C-alpha cells in the first residue's frame, strides 16, 4: 500500500454524528495522531480504516500504484490493535500468533514468531496461556498480532494505555520502524504520543 485516502468520511453513533466529512490522504512514511475526548470517534475512525466498520458517509481507499481497494479487501496489509482487541485466552502466546499467521496465509517460521514475541517484550512467556498474562502482557501481545504480517498500514488505538515505561519504549521502536516502510495512525489521549505526529487531527467533542 502506498497511500490511504479518506474521502468525505462521517461516523455516527446512532443518531449522533461524531465525525463529519473528513477528507485526507496519508502516504508512506507518515504518522498521523488522532486525539479527542472519549466518545469522540477516535476508535471508530480507526475501525473504519481497518475495514471493521462501515462509515456512515464517504469511503476509504487503500491505494497501491493506481489501484484503490477497500480496507476490507486489503486485510493482509493492515495491522490493527486496540484495547478491545481480544485474542484467544485458551491458547498460548505462540499458538495465538501461529494461528493468525496461518489464517492470514503468512509464511513465518517458528523462530520468527519467537523473535517477534521477544521484540514486544514477552520473552519466555511464549508457551503460557493467554489467560495467565497480566494486562500489560496481553497488551504487548496485541502489538505482536498487529505486526505479525508486516503491514504497510499500522493502526494503533491507545497503544500505551496499559504499558509502563518500558512499554513506552516499545511503542517508540515500533513507530520508528513502521515509519521506514509504511503508514502509521495512532489514536491516543497521551500527550507524549502526540509528538510522533506528522499530521495531528483533533476530534472535537459533541457540542
Amino acid at each position, binding site marked *: 500500500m502506498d497511500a490511504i485516502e479518506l474521502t468525505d468520511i462521517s461516523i455516527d453513533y446512532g443518531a449522533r454524528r461524531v465525525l463529519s466529512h473528513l477528507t485526507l490522504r496519508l502516504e508512506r512514511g507518515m504518522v498521523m495522531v488522532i486525539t479527542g475526548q472519549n466518545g469522540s470517534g477516535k476508535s471508530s475512525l480507526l475501525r473504519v480504516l481497518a475495514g471493521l466498520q462501515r462509515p456512515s458517509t464517504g469511503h476509504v481507499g487503500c491505494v497501491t500504484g493506481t489501484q484503490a481497494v477497500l480496507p476490507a479487501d486489503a486485510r493482509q496489509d*493492515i495491522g490493527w490493535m486496540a484495547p478491545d482487541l481480544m485474542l484467544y485466552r485458551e*491458547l498460548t502466546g505462540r499458538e495465538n500468533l501461529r494461528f493468525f499467521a496461518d*489464517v492470514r496465509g503468512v509464511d513465518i517460521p517458528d523462530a520468527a514468531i519467537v523473535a517477534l514475541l521477544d521484540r514486544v517484550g514477552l520473552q519466555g512467556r511464549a508457551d503460557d496461556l493467554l489467560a495467565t498474562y497480566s494486562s500489560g502482557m496481553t497488551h504487548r501481545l496485541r502489538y505482536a498480532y498487529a505486526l505479525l504480517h508486516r503491514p504497510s498500514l499500522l493502526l494503533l488505538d491507545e497503544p500505551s494505555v496499559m504499558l509502563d515505561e518500558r512499554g513506552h519504549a516499545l511503542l517508540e521502536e515500533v513507530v520508528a520502524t513502521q515509519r521506514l516502510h509504511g503508514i502509521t495512525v495512532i489514536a491516543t489521549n497521551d500527550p507524549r504520543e502526540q509528538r510522533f505526529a506528522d499530521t495531528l487531527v483533533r476530534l472535537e467533542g459533541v457540542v
Partner: protein
Amino acid sequence: MNNSLLWRATKAVFVREVRSELRSRQALNAVALFAVCSIVAVSIGLGPLNRSAELPLIHAALVWIVLLFAAFTALARVFVVEEEQRTAAALRLAAPVHAVYLGKLLFNLVLLVALTLLVAVLAVVLLRMQVKAPTAFAVMLAAGSLGLVTGTTLIAAIIARASSRSTLFAVLSFPLLIPLLVTAVRGTALALAGAGWDRCLAPIQTLLAYAVAMFVTSLFLFATVWED
C-alpha cells in the same frame, strides 16, 4: 481467493476450534450429558418395548429428536463464543471469510458425528435398538448429520450477533430442519428395519441434496452475515 490459501486458513480455523474445545470441553460435556440424560430418561420411562412393526420408527424418531436438541445446545457455540469472548474482531481482520465458515462447519460436523456415534451406541444398549442394515444406518446418519450442520451453521452466525441467543437458535433453525427431520427419521427407520439399498437410497439422496443446497446457499450468504 487462492484455493490453497483458503484451505490452509480453513484448516487453521478448524484446528484452533478443536484445540480450544479440547481445553475447555464445554460443548463436548454439554452434548454428551444431554444425550445420556435423554436416552436414559426414555429408557426408564418407557421400559422394555415390545417388538412391533412400528418399533424401528419409534427408535428412529427418538434418535433424531435427541440429535436435534443436542444440536440446539451445542452447534451455535462456534460463533457465540467468538462474540462473547470478543475475539470476533481479531478473526474478522485476519481470516478470509469463507475459511471462517468452512473451518467452523467442519468442527460442527466432527462434533455432531461424535454425538451421533454416542447416541447410536446408547440407543442400542439402553433402548435395545436393533440395527438390521448397519451400513445403510451409518450412511443415513452421516447424510443426516451433514444436512443438520449445513442447515444450522449459518443460523448460528446470524444469532451470534443477537440477544436471547440460545432460544433464538432453536426458533430459527427448527422450521428449516423439518424436511431434514422427516426424511432422516423415515430413512433411519427403514435402515433399522433392514430395508434394502433400493429403498434406502432415496432418503439418502434427499438428505444429501438438502445438505448441498444448504451448503451452497450458506457460502453465498455468509459474507453478508460475517461483515460488520
